[in-house]
């Protein structure tokens, strides 16, 4: 799973969000390191929707602009959980080989 996908699913794991909400949340989660732009975000959402990991939620109009919310599906949650387990296992091995405290994270 690529990092933007992982971060988008992580942002949506807390609840349904609209496009700009996801962008801001991803920036916050990655501590400002990853800045998603509209083109990247909507290409990723398009793919995630096609893969059944994300679905459209409610819509509203704010300041004359359409705002659509997205939420993570059960499939998306399962994929994210699997990725978390994979990253955690890899990080634990890396930490133990580096001799970092505890060897597990």
């Amino acid at each position, binding site marked *: 799973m690529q990092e933007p996908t992982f971060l988008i699913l992580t942002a949506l794991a807390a609840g349904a*969000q*609209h*496009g*700009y*909400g996801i*962008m*801001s*949340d991803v920036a916050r989660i990655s501590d400002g390191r990853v800045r998603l*732009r*509209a*083109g*990247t*975000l*909507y*290409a990723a959402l*398009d*793919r995630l929707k096609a893969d059944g990991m994300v679905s459209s939620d409610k819509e509203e109009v*704010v*300041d004359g*602009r*359409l*705002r*659509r919310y997205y939420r993570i599906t059960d499939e998306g949650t399962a994929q994210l959980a699997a990725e978390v387990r994979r990253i955690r296992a890899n990080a634990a091995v890396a930490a133990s080989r580096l001799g970092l405290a505890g060897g597990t994270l």
Partner: protein
Amino acid sequence: MTWSVELEGRPGGRPARRRTRMERRYRRLLTLYPKAHRREHAEEMIGVLFAAADYDARVRAPKPVAWALRSGQHVADCADLVAGAARIRGRMLVNRVKQATRSSWMVRDPRWSDALAVISVIAPVLLLVAALAEFHLPQAVASSVTGHPHWRLTAALGLGDLPLAAGAPAVAALALLRLRRLAGLGALAVAIGQVVAAVQRPDSPITGYASPVVAFTVLLACTAAAALLLSPGPGRGLALLTRGGAALIGAGALILGGFSVGGNVWLDSRSGFTKDLGSEVTGLPGDLLIAAVLVAAAAGCLRAPVSRRVLVLLAIPVIPYAIWWQEKLASDLFGQDAGASASIASSLPLLYLPPLLLAGVIVAGTWLARRRAVRQGRPASAAGPRSAVSA
């Protein structure tokens, strides 16, 4: 999450004019996206782009720096829009190519596709049973159970036996593991291997090909390969098979293994044993029972359209098998030499022509049906039934 819009500006003022220019640019770039995506997301994306621009505009900095910052972000957003459109269109193209590649190889008529999917389960099983029967495994088991001394396992397997001995179990295992393409290619390899093995035999190639056993296994392997490569495969086939379908597979397996056992426990006249009417008769009820099961299964299957197609497809390898069986009967029951004085002597055209003609009729018939359906502007057939075999 706040949706801040700070750059509204007075109508006709500089920020408003800049905003109009930005929006026009965004809309122009959004035309790069597929129509469906644009219809669904264009307004939403423009909202997100302006929200991000508004956030960047909040940065407090000297005017030239703020302008450079805003312009830089705007250019980056425009470039990202182009990249996003390329990504979505690229993905669509890949999907379309995949779809075209897949559909060009798959049978489109859902009834034939489902029938082939059912065959992709049955044919590998029959191939396995045929291999076991070829190497006398069921016969050896029957001999050990009945105490009949006549049959034992084929002692030494030659190189010519390898395609069937190794190939049939491999194809059945791959089909069971739902590795459709690998199993299909494996079945094709078995068919080619059988043909090559027939050429390598010490007797003439014609005798090798003209053997009903070879014709049966070659055509069965070809049918299995076609079913595995041209249909959704054993996954769909198993989903379609009900208890009636399982009975059909059982009958198929029985007919192969059982005919060999039942037919061959009659003393073979060529082996020098004295013919014994008692052992001839003991073999007969088994055959009659198997034939009755097959006829019952076939009659049950004739009710569903997919099942009818399953039976037609199964007839392709069964034609040489029927000739094999009548030769066996002629040889065992009436003491005639196999092939030589049987009522229908096997020959190359007799073994291969009817199955090939049948396959040709199926292909031509489905092609004509599809053409007629296209001309009449309706789909080739209705959606496939839920179950292939009505139990």
